[in-house]
């Protein structure tokens, strides 16, 4: 009756079961953090770094399989309806369609049923339409523009995945796909009886065949990941109720706010991230921030750039509304803040913290030599790395890492003055303890204008850099990666060097190619990418 369309529908359905099982796992952050902790080797941990990309690939696979499944079912429903047509009256298809009672085959029970009507009156049809519309909404809100520019829209719409999964779980409930029962097969052999459809039931060799709906199987596949994800969200809710104290709020130039927080039992590794929520501001919005404090600190800190509604609201509830007013000069804003009476601890807002969650930067200390490459705001995770390096070196803790390189590419250092100050401080502190060679950094400013160039030319003989005040001078333009990697190969022949990148995709592609290109003759560059 359905010819090959049934197979075309059931095959993607089987694949969909497996893909939907896998789809929820990469976004269970706590599960991944646990796996990262128990993974015995770096290679396995490395596979967890691309969890978001994995989730996206699975989502696209689900979309493609859904498309094939739907097209096949369109054919199925049209063919079911076609079996009732006048042309099929005296044919096998007609005979099969007219089987009555519970043992029927054709889910369209009479000739008045149309495919459209069947799709909105059967459980499979309704759940299929609901699930597909949810999928379309999920897809359209997950496009890069929406995700980057209107994250809250993406995040809230993504909760439709709950409806999607519930609809899919019930999709096979109506048992619309039917097969001949084993008992009927013993009495009614299709090979013998298919030609004798006019005499079915009137002789004993070919009684009326009986069909039964096949039981749904999808729920068996998706139940476990749904439970896992529900536990994940429950854990997030539980953590959100725990008390977090804001111990200090620091105003930095260029509209950057530093929050120093403490939470009982909180312990983070280097470069990890947390999600923050300010319930008094927006109870459903959680925003990710990389931790900029070192694990050795007795607090954990995040640096927040005040650029949008949520961050402006955060500045306001922390008593910084005037300092970060649009148009206000940042240096004078910070000066005004110093003179203003500060908020008391009990006046600061309640902050919910979820995390910490592991990130690729965890592995920095697993190598003898690590290269950290940051593009613009991607330098934030490396603040934690550098601070932790300083802490361990200054305390004389056993440390496998002996050399760390930092390459920082940014248009200008606006919004990162706090990081520049950190570099200056680290540089002098490492020099004080006689370990200046531990850290080598190269900063590349990719935007300047003629006036700035002239001003820098005037000051080129100064000991410290004009822009940052560091001993290492800032370079202009983009680095020549061939030269940099050649230099690394020369200095670290035969070593395994960890390369950690947090930056735009183009930079990532270039560096990844260089890592594989320069990995030869025992020297190996292992590439790790942070996902924002």
């Amino acid at each position: 009756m359905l010819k090959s369309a049934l197979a075309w529908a059931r095959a993607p359905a089987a694949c969909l079961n497996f893909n939907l099982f896998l789809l929820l796992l990469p976004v269970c952050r706590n599960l991944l953090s646990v796996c990262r902790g128990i993974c015995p080797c770096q290679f396995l941990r490395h596979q967890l770094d691309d969890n978001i990309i994995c989730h996206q690939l699975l989502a696209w696979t689900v979309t493609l399989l859904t498309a094939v499944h739907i097209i096949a079912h369109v054919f199925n429903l049209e063919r079911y309806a076609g079996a009732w047509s006048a042309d099929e009256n005296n044919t096998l298809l007609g005979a099969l369609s007219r089987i009555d009672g519970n043992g029927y085959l054709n889910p369209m029970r009479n000739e008045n049923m149309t495919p459209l009507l069947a799709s909105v009156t059967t459980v499979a049809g309704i759940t299929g339409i609901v699930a597909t519309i949810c999928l379309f909404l999920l897809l359209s809100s997950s496009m890069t523009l929406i995700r980057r520019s209107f994250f809250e829209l993406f995040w809230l719409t993504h909760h439709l995945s709950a409806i999607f999964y519930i609809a899919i779980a019930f999709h096979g409930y109506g048992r619309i796909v039917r097969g001949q029962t084993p008992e009927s097969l013993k009495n009614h052999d299709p090979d013998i009886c298919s030609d004798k459809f006019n005499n079915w039931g009137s002789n004993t060799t070919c009684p009326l065949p009986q069909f039964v709906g096949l039981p749904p199987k999808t729920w068996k596949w998706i139940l476990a990941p749904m439970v896992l994800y529900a536990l994940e969200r429950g854990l997030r809710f539980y953590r959100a109720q725990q008390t977090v104290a804001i111990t200090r709020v620091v105003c930095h130039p260029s509209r950057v706010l530093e929050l120093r927080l403490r939470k009982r039992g909180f312990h983070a590794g280097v470069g990890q991230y947390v999600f923050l929520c300010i319930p008094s501001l927006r109870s459903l919005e959680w925003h990710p921030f990389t931790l900029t404090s070192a694990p050795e600190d007795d607090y954990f800190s995040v640096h927040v750039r005040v650029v949008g509604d949520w961050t402006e609201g955060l500045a306001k509830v922390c008593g910084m509304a005037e300092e970060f007013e649009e148009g206000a000069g940042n240096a004078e804003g910070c000066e005004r803040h110093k003179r203003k009476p500060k908020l008391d601890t009990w006046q600061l807002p309640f902050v919910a913290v979820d995390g910490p969650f592991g990130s690729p930067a965890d592995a920095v200390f697993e190598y003898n030599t690590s290269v950290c490459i940051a593009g613009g705001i991607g330098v934030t995770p490396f603040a934690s790395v550098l601070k932790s390096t300083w802490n361990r070196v200054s305390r004389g803790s056993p440390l496998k890492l002996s050399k760390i390189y930092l390459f920082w590419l940014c248009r200008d250092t606006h919004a990162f003055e706090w990081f520049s100050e950190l570099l200056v401080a680290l540089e002098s502190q490492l020099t004080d303890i006689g370990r200046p060679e531990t850290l080598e950094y190269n900063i590349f400013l990719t935007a300047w204008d003629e006036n700035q160039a002239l001003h820098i030319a005037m000051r080129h003989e100064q000991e410290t850099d004009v822009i940052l005040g560091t001993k290492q001078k800032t370079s202009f333009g983009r680095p020549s990666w061939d030269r940099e990697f050649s230099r690394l190969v020369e200095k670290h022949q035969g070593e395994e060097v960890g390369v950690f990148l947090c930056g735009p995709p183009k930079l990532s592609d270039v560096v990844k190619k260089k890592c594989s290109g320069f990995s030869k003759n025992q020297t190996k560059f292992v590439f790790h990418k942070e996902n924002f």
Partner: protein
Amino acid sequence: MSTIELYIRLESLGQVTCPGQVTCLPAVKKMGRTEWAMWANEHALLSGVVLTLGGVVGTAAQFPNWQFAAASLGAGLLVMLIEYPRGKKMNGGFHPRRGQGCPQACTVILGPITRNYICRSLLLALLSAPGYLTLATILGSISLAISVLFYLLAAIRGESWQPGHTGDSKHEKISQDTEPKIPPPRTPEELRQGSLLQRLQLGRVSKLIASSGSRRPGKRQVPLTETSPLVES
């Protein structure tokens, strides 16, 4: 010298020209409220693809009422043509899709029909109509109806479609081999040995030194005479 002091110093020397250049404290643009039109556009484009695909299936398989599927096929293609060019965001940001120049010209020609979101939503509602009548295209039509609602919401919030221009895009592709437009900072020695244009720059450096009253200790002050009306080609 911190970055802030550097910029204030340049400002006092009268060298800062206008906002937007790197020497100025950049105007911080608010990441604004949700723009429903942006989501409506993405969703409508997706719906157009689904409608077209459904139309192809319905027409090719010659199901009953395949004529409506054929009409939906045409409607889906038209939806894709109208929705492919992305407009500017309300904050001026522009993220064009690849190759949207030609469809954008068609969309601009339609004028207020596409610019005004109420008209656009009525047009999309009309284009989705034939799709409700066949199974192959019903999903595309339902999806397009949802994007019609989003566009109506966008219209209520005062949004409208504004065509962008290539120069507006902040994300133009910059290849690894693109040379910078402005030469990097060069030392006075490099400027002296460089081209005529660079020697002109050295003249300006000297003027800056003289006007600011600062002297580099232990160095001869560069004479203020190196000017030329010639511009190096």
